[in-house]
């Protein structure tokens, strides 16, 4: 079937079998491999993307659900705001060593930007609760939490300055 949606700001039309996961569509058909598949059982959050602005697990979303929607992946994030191509949240992850092996990072960043958009100054407890669906198997949570708090502050400082 044919589906049309907005992908990282661009109108996109693709031909897919209905039994296609969005994570597979992105990685295999559209070569957007920034979205990672960690567990493939809806638990780990490495595949989080924004569907109409809300973070969702793309490994548990059927491609037909994209029809008419707006999708943002980690590839589309850098270009939307921030300096030097990086989004302020990505910048904060780099600055605060919010990653070790980096596999979970795209999902962490996507969840974090949605969290910070809804809550400009999240507390540590709110960040930890907000990241409940994102697993870091390096267990590097401490710096991820620090990075998300700093990234939230930077996101809102940037938008206030614009």
């Amino acid at each position, binding site marked *: *079937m044919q589906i049309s949606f907005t992908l990282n700001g661009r109108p996109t039309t693709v031909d897919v*079998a*209905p*039994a296609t*996961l969005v994570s597979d569509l992105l990685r295999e058909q559209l070569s957007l491999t920034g979205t990672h598949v960690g567990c*493939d*059982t*809806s*638990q780990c*959050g490495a595949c*989080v993307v924004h*569907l109409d602005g*809300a*973070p*969702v*697990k793309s490994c*548990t*979303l*059927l491609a*037909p*659900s994209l029809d008419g929607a707006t999708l943002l992946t980690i590839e589309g994030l850098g270009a939307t705001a921030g300096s030097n191509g990086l989004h302020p949240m990505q910048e904060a992850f780099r600055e605060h060593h919010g990653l070790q092996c980096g596999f979970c990072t795209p999902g962490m960043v996507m*969840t974090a930007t*949605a*969290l910070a958009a809804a809550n400009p100054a999240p507390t540590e407890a709110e960040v930890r609760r*907000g990241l*409940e*669906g*994102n697993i870091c198997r390096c267990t590097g949570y401490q710096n991820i939490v620090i990075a998300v708090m700093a990234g939230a502050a930077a996101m809102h400082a940037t938008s206030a300055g614009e």
Partner: protein
Amino acid sequence: MRAFAYHQPNEISEAVKLLTSVEDCKVLGGGMTLIPTLKQRLAAPAAVVDLAKLPALKGISDDGVTVTIGAMTPHAVVAASPIVQARIPALAHLASEIGDPAVRNRGTLGGSVANNDPAADYPAAVLGLGATIITSAREIAADRFFVGLFETALEPGEIITAIRFPVPVAAGYAKFKAPASRYALVGVFVARFADGVRVAVTGAGAGVFRVAAMEQALSQSFEPTSIASIKIDAAGLTSDIHAEADYRAHLVTVMAKRAVTAASR
């Protein structure tokens, strides 16, 4: 995942027609339970009927006595709803404690209640509040809806369209989360109405159930102390890697007391 035909009807009647005429058809709500089972090939339907484009299954309304929530309303929307927060805050709280943010953005009230997972949260609120399940065919009282393990009173081809919750005087929900999934190891929903109290337990057994002894004691005196000595029989409760039946039985009293405390705030 095996191939399937995909349908996205715009009318409930059209959805029902598909479900009753197309062979081996499955309803898709938020997909947070169905898609994992498709991926594991525990289910391999020939066709999927996606309820996403049915406007009648969305929305939250308040008629003064009851709050009605459309079946396709995601958990995150229930949790953030000003109506639910004002009228049945315990229900908004329960929705905010399901899974994680991404699960709450997709998973729906109707899907959770239709699935009737023995550790799901919503069944405790539906039974605890004595809600009414509104389907494409009829209305079903919560007391007759939850039949057994993953089993409900729904007939083949029957779609939940909304759930109508009576507004209680006070209500509270307390759950002991399984740490990895955040499903209820034990969850207890307590609701006080002008004419009595209802207590519903999820996570502990093969399905959600009421506790008459606690309901009577709390109707006399709505205090945590009035149920402190009421023990649940562990026979028939679930034993698994997370907890033994006797521990679950113990947790029912602990969570019930916490739910009463939460309701009294």
